[in-house]
């Protein structure tokens, strides 16, 4: 059987991956003296962005249907606040609270999905309302900045600080001669598992293919007997659920809850998906691309921080420039395709 010939989407994915590699390599050369080349730097990018990876996966699923979910940033803030308030202030046990947060994600997604799919209200408006709601609820719980400490919840604290050490040969020798063993946090495992599961779901399940079909042509999908509305509903539920998982990762990283947390996260997630090759019109994209989109985003931030002198707004400008680059690339590919016809 002939394999799928390389199409423009594959090329885009390869460019994304190549760009990430190039950017990272450039960082290693330029900031070699600041330890950028250590494997741990890469792992740190993963650790900081574990939450964003989960969110981007959910976002990709929603974008595949041709929709959008801009409530994710606020939902993360709300999740973090719930966790910080319940564990940090009230001292509740962590497992029930984590389940509770996941349940909130499900309910949140159900409501949004219902409004989008069954009431046929534009997703941008629905999730914008969701965004307002979640952000406002965060403030209703508390307007102060709360944090979870070792005293208030030792179990959660332990999880947050757990190190999963990787084989020592990946590490490096510090100037005192001791080997620094590279490590990751449990959040990275969660995030990568999410990527793997969503990858399988998108490629090998009826639901996953339905997402593509709905995004490709909603009316056709309906005609072919797919339940378009249920598929959309599921996409939003999945997005909010993954967002809650992302919220937990985020919370484990920051151990805090604040109203202004994760501001602009939705746009980062969208940007990552787009850089990873997802089309906003739906039907095209995959989570591997989105993963690299997040990594590129994270690498830019790390580069700016490593430099130390640059204003943080340069990271935004760089992301915008990259976004611009990829968008133009996509449209050039689309134009070529059209010309061929």
């Amino acid at each position, binding site marked *: 059987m002939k394999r799928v010939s390389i199409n423009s989407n594959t090329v885009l994915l390869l460019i994304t991956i190549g760009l990430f590699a190039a950017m990272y390599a450039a960082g290693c050369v330029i900031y070699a003296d600041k330890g950028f080349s250590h494997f741990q730097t890469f792992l740190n990018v993963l650790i900081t962005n574990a939450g964003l990876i989960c969110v981007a996966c959910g976002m990709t699923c929603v974008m595949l249907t041709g929709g959008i979910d801009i409530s994710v940033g606020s939902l993360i803030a709300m999740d973090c606040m719930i966790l910080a308030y319940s564990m940090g202030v009230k001292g509740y046990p962590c497992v029930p609270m984590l389940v509770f947060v996941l349940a909130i994600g499900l309910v949140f997604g159900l409501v949004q999905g219902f409004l989008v799919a069954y009431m046929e209200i534009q997703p941008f408006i629905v999730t914008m309302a969701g965004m307002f709601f979640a952000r406002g609820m965060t403030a209703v719980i508390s307007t102060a900045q709360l944090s979870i400490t070792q005293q208030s919840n030792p179990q959660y604290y332990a999880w947050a600080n757990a190190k999963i050490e990787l084989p020592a040969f990946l590490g490096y020798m510090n100037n005192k001669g001791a080997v620094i063993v590279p490590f990751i946090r449990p959040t990275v495992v969660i995030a990568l598992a999410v990527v793997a599961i969503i990858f399988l779901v998108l490629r090998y399940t009826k639901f996953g293919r*339905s997402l593509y079909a709905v995004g490709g042509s909603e009316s056709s*999908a*309906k*005609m*072919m*007997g797919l339940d378009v509305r249920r598929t959309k509903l599921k996409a939003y539920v999945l997005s909010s659920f993954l967002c809650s998982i992302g919220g937990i990762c985020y919370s484990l990283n920051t151990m805090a809850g604040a109203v202004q947390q994760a501001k602009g996260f939705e746009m980062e997630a969208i940007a990552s998906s787009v850089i990873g090759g997802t089309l906003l019109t739906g*039907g095209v994209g995959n989570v591997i691309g989105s993963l690299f989109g997040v990594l590129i985003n994270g690498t830019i931030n790390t580069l700016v921080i490593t430099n130390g002198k640059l204003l943080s707004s340069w990271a935004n400008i760089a992301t915008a420039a990259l976004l611009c680059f990829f968008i133009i690339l996509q449209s050039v590919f689309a134009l070529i395709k059209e010309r061929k016809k």
Partner: protein
Amino acid sequence: MQSGEKGGSVFQNRPFSQYGEAFCAGPSQLIYTERVKHMEDQILLTMRNVCKAFPGVRALENAQITLRKGEIHALMGENGAGKSTLIKVLTGVYQFDSGEIRIQGINEPVINRSTLEAQKNGIATVYQEINLCPNLSVAENLFIGREPKSRLGLIDWRTMNKRAKKIMDDLDIDVDVTLTLENYSLAVQQMIAIARAVDMDCRILILDEPTSSLDDGEVAKLFKLMLRLKEEGVGIIFITHFLEQVYMVCDRITVLRNGRFVGEYGVGEMPRVKLVAAMLGKDFDDLASIKPEGGAASSEEVVVEAKGLSHKGKIKPFDFIIRKGEVVGVTGLLGSGRSEMVRCIYGADRAQTGTLKMKGRELKAKAPIDSIKAGMGFLPDDRKADGLIGDLSVRENIILAMQAREGIFKTLPPSKQNELADKFIEMLRIKTASRETPVSQLSGGNQQKVILARWLCTHPDFLILDEPTRGIDVGTKTEFQKLILKFASEGMSVVFISSEIEEMLRTCSRMCVMRDGAKVDEIEGDMTQNSVMAAIAGGEAK
């Protein structure tokens, strides 16, 4: 399959035998009486007293149809007769207001609330518009919703591709099933859509104008397939505008008019004239020659003269000339470049080489607006994608081209707009609730009239009509032909493209013949169906 073995032409009105051996076995009535008799009383489907109203329109009023096992049943009617609505009611796209649907083997009246339910009840549909997903692979389009699963419950891509390949091979369609659908032409996509319906194990197959985007070889393949399914006992409802095709494959005909049931006939007992009369509800002069005797003498004044126009990769340099009051046809196979040629003249696609003179003055059209200002009009073949502004009202659609020519600052006063709209609604007999009705609510033929009105508004000297009669009913077709001749007699020069050669023979005084993206011939004077077809096919005729 793209170009390999299609023998004749795209045109549907041709001697029977040219459709290939599959149909030479005998007229279908024969098959009906001999082979299918035992299935006679096995009624698969009945729809009775079905009513459905849309805002302002009663689309169906006591419509009915009865489908038997192993028959091909033509559903005929003018545009707006309610054929599509009836089908959509049956397949659950629309809910009906009252009536009853019964399907063999189901004891209760059936109400399909969704296409999915209809599929479960054994009804599969291939619509006029291709309802597949362009971003999915061919195999997925065949199997979506019922993908073969591996033991883990995951989609088994290898099996799926293998099975898809087999289906396509069985139907003689040569595609790579792992490529995405958007890589293939509309015709191939249509065949894939049919393949999907066929593979769904349906008992009732509905084909809603499946042949309108297929060329000859493909139509033959489709008919072969339909006859095979019929033998297997599938009931097929076949909607088409091509009368010839009805007589070729169908056993029975149900005629609808204005949403009402007119009658059900066996094909044998229904000569063509009677069928058309039933559809139109009046005695009809059998599409008689409406061309005025001797033809209008066209003047010598040249309106448009093109020299060496070409469009990169699509059409090779061609010359073209048209005089005042002349009707020129452009003919050729589907994909021969006939649409591309007129688009190039109009400036819809910018010509890379050559010059175009309009009334003696050179015209360098950068965009369609320049051509409009010079006095051209263009009715594109794909009215949905290129013609209609769906949500705007009939009035706005009519005045748009004129407004565009006047420019953004010279708004036509509302009274003038209303006057124009009313004038053309009356003149072209456009059936619409009011001039403020969104044009998307009109039936296909009336939509086409609105676009025609749009151009008549601008009083063009030169009007291009690319398949104005495609997908519209016989009555309106004749109306269009008469209109074209009327315009020409008033001094308008018209380029007319149609897939039906008879139509062009009746209206055109000259024909340009296109083949493989080049203008190969021009025939004038003594034109007959055979001479034109020979020219299109090439070879000895030259």
